[in-house]
């Protein structure tokens, strides 16, 4: 990723090839990507794939164990919950919510964070001080705690949980973007564009922004996985998605008192979270290695 190459189209394909070359070196990263694509596929076609409606109560089959256990039935492969709802179908539909939550959190925090970071770095002055001190304040309180308080204000629910988590992630993007902007500002090409009379907005978004993107993208994938974890944690604490919405953390929370009685209602949603987050982290590691020029050489 060198600066002169960015604006030209023909090299974009080259860049992509180069990126894919380095990314595909890591087998685990590719495995993570494959699994992630699978999860996305399941989420997109949840209605077709899942054997039952996620909210349908088969009360005569309440608390059925998974199919391979004694008393289990093939039609409820991962067992059923207290009201006889199919765990597999609920987990499949839950993948939608988790991926959606992760994406929205990243989109929100990334776009707001990058914008504020650019402004802070480019404009400087009191605006920079204000933005950075507000970000410091947000970072002074543990993210989950701040999100909890925010959700308490906004009211529990998946959407509000996403907004709250996005707010707690914003400072990381602001800091990254500001730091890169500051270092880019001193480079020749920026000075050159300034001399030719390019507008500030053009400078900020067309010249500087693309060159700050690599670390932001890596931070974005990291945030994607932690956003899924934090959404689930809020759901678990009863402050995220509300039952009977089959969000993964909420599934664990609503079945928590059955932990001795019907442990499968707690274990499978957790495994789903773990695998999805793991896949994203594998991809994230691969991305970082592929995008980080320093590691490329070694």
């Amino acid at each position, binding site marked *: 990723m060198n600066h002169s190459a960015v604006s030209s189209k023909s090299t974009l394909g080259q860049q992509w090839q180069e990126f894919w070359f380095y990314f595909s070196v890591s087998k685990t990263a590719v495995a993570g990507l494959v699994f992630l694509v699978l999860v996305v596929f399941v989420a997109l076609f949840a209605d077709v794939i899942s054997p039952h409606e996620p*909210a349908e*109560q088969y009360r005569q089959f309440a608390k059925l164990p998974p199919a391979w256990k004694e008393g289990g039935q093939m039609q409820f492969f991962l067992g059923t919950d*207290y*009201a006889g709802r199919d765990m597999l179908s609920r987990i499949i539909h839950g993948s939608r919510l988790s991926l959606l939550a992760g994406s929205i959190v990243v989109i929100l925090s990334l776009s707001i964070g990058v914008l504020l970071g650019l402004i802070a770095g480019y404009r400087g002055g009191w605006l920079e001080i204000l933005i950075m001190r507000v970000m410091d304040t947000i970072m002074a309180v543990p993210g989950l705690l701040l999100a909890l308080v925010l959700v308490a204000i906004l009211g*529990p629910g998946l959407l509000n949980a996403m907004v709250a988590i996005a707010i707690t992630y914003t400072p990381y993007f602001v800091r990254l973007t500001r730091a890169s902007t500051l270092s880019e500002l001193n480079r020749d090409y920026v000075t050159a564009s300034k001399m030719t009379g390019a507008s500030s907005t053009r400078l900020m978004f067309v010249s500087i922004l693309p060159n700050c993107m690599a670390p932001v993208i890596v931070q974005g994938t990291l945030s994607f996985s932690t956003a899924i974890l934090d959404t689930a944690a809020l759901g678990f604490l*009863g402050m995220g998605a509300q039952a*009977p919405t089959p969000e993964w953390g909420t599934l664990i929370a609503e079945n928590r*008192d059955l*932990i*001795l009685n019907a442990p499968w209602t707690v274990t499978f949603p957790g495994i789903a979270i773990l695998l999805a987050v793991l896949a994203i982290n594998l991809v994230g590691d691969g991305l970082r290695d592929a995008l980080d020029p320093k590691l490329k050489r070694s």
Partner: protein
Amino acid sequence: MKKTLLAAGLGLGLALTGVAQAKTLVFCSEGSPEGFNPSLYSAGTTFDASSQTIYNRIVQFETGTTKVIPGLAESWSSSADGLEYTFNLRKGVQFHTTDDFTPTRDFNADDILFTYNRMWKEDHPYHDVGGEYLYFGWMDMGSLLKSIEKVDDYTVKFTLTRPESPFVSNLAMDFASVLSAEYADNLAVAGRQADIDNKPVGTGPFVLDSYVKDAYIRYNAHDDYWDGRSNIDKLVFAITVDNNVRYQKLKAGECHVMPYPNPADLAAMAADADINLMQQEGLNVGYLAFNTEKAPFDQKIVRQALSMAINKQAILDIVFEGAGSVAKNPIPPTMWSYNHAVRDYAYDPAGAKAMLDSAGVSGLKTNIWAMPVQRPYNPNARRMAELIQADWAKVGVDAEIVTYEWGEYLQRSRDGEHDTMLLGWTGDNGDPDNFMGVLLGCTAAASGGNRARWCHEEFDSLLNQARQITDQAERTALYEEAQEIFKDEAPWVTIAHSIVFKPVRKEVTGFIVHPLGSHIFYDGVDLK
């Protein structure tokens, strides 16, 4: 003290010294008390740790019933107009001696006056010490009382502003626990007024020894207790929040009694030879209230149809896991005046659908509010709402589940924002008026305590008549009639009365499950 407990637990040491082994009863309580003055709080956990151990009241509930019996008063009488009550106080009752206080006199009328005036009179020097006198307000004592007079050291006269038949029962409630006026005076001199609530002194069967938040409360027997020293020498509340853990400790013999078992564990407890699983129907009711001010719930036939559409037995099986009974009346069956003749709506989705059609209701979209907290009358409101949602879907009603934070939930529902909502009630004093009057009367419909916002003239006048008379048989007849009207009008779907389970280890004798929810370790409780 610490040595004895450990030694008792491990069963060694003491035999050598020839000292009789102290009887220690351990109660795995469900949480830390809010404090040690029951007049300031509302949680049963707090009452167990304070009013039922440290304090007495002027009159008390007989353990195991809601009958009012003498406490610090030996006897009482009321005037013919029901406005004056005179109490003859017990002589020779001693307050606890603690590190901070040594009583120089016996209990007398001054202590009664101190206790009530503190809660009642805003200019009382102790009124602003502590916090809010919650139950004193809820029972409307402030406007009910006209005066409290000390006739002599052992006679006190209460004068009321209006006749109120449940008055004496109110005085037996936890909030009316009697504090020591002498202790209060000493603390005022020392400038440590707040200690009256934190370092409690009472006349009760147990003296507070030590307390560590979220860990334990330790009590010793009150040697000079007026009703005889307790059989138990030491009482320990081992604070154990998680019901799974409480059960494990009970199994291991680390505690003798535990409250609020996880419904899912009941079968295993019943099968355990070391555990005596005691049970009693709780003095409570869980209900779904229709907002009768909103269409179509203003029509009786719609309310009846939606009542018929709910499979209550499934709720009992899934939400209560059997630890409850289907409710048909707004008061629990253990309460006097319960009308056994009332017939409940049978589960009949087809019939319900037909009734909705005849009322011209189709494609109804509505909501079910579910509270966010576990209550004695409803172990899991959201689960209950999910089941009702599915049942109603079968008769073509599309209901959305709505939840707010608990305080907001109560406030918004008091303002009538809901279509239908889940709530319930736990009895305070065993009087039917404490259910029907507070929850279904017209005054309550105006103030919002009546979540159905249902004001039925005939029903309301029956309640008003019953409140003015003291004869229980006459009152019973009126309340039975009121229950018939209630069922026909169906402002609520009465869902369940929970069954209260108390797993108690076999070596404990004489423990009684108390209908008002308290855990009492005096009155004949002993260890084998």
